[in-house]
């Protein structure tokens, strides 16, 4: 089950590995995506830190990691096909990390809470 932060990133956890992407709402706001700058492999990042960057035809935006840990996989196919995220935001990951503090998940929103949050915007 996915959890969300207020910056519209989602995270899905399997074991100790957290998979991160951006929400459909975020993608709708950005429009056609043209470029991703991905985090560095093995980088230690902490919750809320800007670790990646996405550019669209009308805006540019930082991607903040919703959870702390060590980057262990980046989705390099986004470098050539950023539009994959337009086609399926919820199913396309941007990076994965080894979590360093699973308790952080509790502070994130669940699907319902995130839906209410988006409706309130």
């Amino acid at each position, binding site marked *: 089950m996915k959890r969300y932060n207020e910056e519209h990133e989602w995270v899905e956890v399997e074991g100790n590995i957290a998979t991160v992407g951006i929400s459909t709402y975020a993608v709708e706001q950005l429009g056609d995506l*043209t*470029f991703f*700058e991905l985090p*560095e492999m093995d980088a230690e990042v902490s919750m809320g830190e*800007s670790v990646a*960057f996405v*550019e669209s035809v009308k*805006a*540019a935006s*930082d991607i903040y990691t919703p959870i702390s840990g060590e980057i262990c996989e980046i989705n390099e196919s986004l470098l050539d096909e950023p539009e994959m995220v337009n086609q399926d935001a919820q199913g396309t990951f941007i990076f994965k990390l080894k979590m360093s503090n699973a308790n952080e998940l509790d502070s994130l929103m669940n699907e319902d809470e995130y839906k209410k949050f988006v409706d309130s915007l």
Partner: protein
Amino acid sequence: MPYTPHTKKDVREMLDVIGLENESDLFSSVPKELQVHGIDLPEGLDEFSTFEKFKTIAAKNVTNKTIFMGGGYYDHVVPSAVDALAGRSEFYTSYTPYQAEASQGTLQVLYEYQSMICEISGMDVSNASMYDGASALAESALMAVRISRKRNKILIDAGINPTYIKVVQTYLSFRDIEFEVIDVKDYQTDRQAVLDKIDDTVAGYLFQNPNFFGTIDDFTAIIEKLHEHKALAVISAYPISLGMLKDPASVGADIFCADGQCLGNYMNFGGPSFGMIATKEKYIRDLPGRIIGRTLDKDENEIFVLTMQAREQHIRRHRATSNICSNQNLVAVRSTIFMSLLGQDGLSEMANLCFSKASYLKEELSKLEGVSVLNKENSFNEFVISTPLESDDLLNQLRDKGFYAGINLANIDSQFKNEILVSVTEKRTKEQMDALVSSIGEVL
């Protein structure tokens, strides 16, 4: 028609809407002691008197000396076509080309400009110009730090124009960036000292070739070591010299920057000029400033637009690549016209003329008793001489004889009491150079 667009009635209405008594209330938040009450200006003048007044001021300019001063600004030929074309109102008065549908002319010239800068530097991409050579170098340093991501150390070669170094230091000291200036030895990069400083903490090394003293050097070993440590080589170069020397991309530089005054602009007491930055394609998103792109419109016509704007501050806000959102269009347009008039052969001929004339002057000066040329073997169009006289004294006497004979290096560093930086361009004739040599002979 009054020149001020607001009538008293307009002003009254506006003040009423925001609930103020009078205009000075608008400034009530400025502390009293900081408010200005009246400025002491002389009475206005009519057109004729104004013209006369400015003519008198302009007549104080000295325009009849032969110039051997360079140090970043050079007395090069400016073909009349440059003034004639750049002076056209389509270029001269047009506003920044945000609206592509109304600015195709300006946008196309700037696109051609970028293409030419890429040709002379060998790089893949260029922006549409910066303010000047010094700010372009400082922006290049910030760019190197951005590209390196987590590194924040910049090495600065002391062979760079000292005024550029000051600008770079100003830029860097207000950010969390460490920098170290590495002294030169005998007017040349201290290669071993630079090599010893390169490690995994260095984001980039800034150098100039030919350097401020005119010395041409081989940076291959340094650039190789930089790349081994994933650090960037940032070269500041004299564009005219690229007509003769290997281009920055061929020597392995990652970022090329320069001042563009020498390409079709007068010396103008030091400005306006423009700066250029070009780099490899993979770094385009870290390039500051405007970039013009070529594309197709909905009817498939080839057109030109501002592109990659997500790097810029009006979109990327605080994470923009630079807070410079302007450029030097008109001066860059002049250089584009200049470069197209010269062509590749012209640029290379100009470089060769500068080099060979400087070689002649070096030769003649070294025949004088008491004069030594300190970097005679490997300089381009500029070189350092030393004489038994203090430079101020020598330069003053030569000025009285009709020459701006060079830059007094004592103004740069007090260790250089008797050293002068002499520069030669294609404009200098054999007669002028012979006259300078005999005048120096007379003074000494």
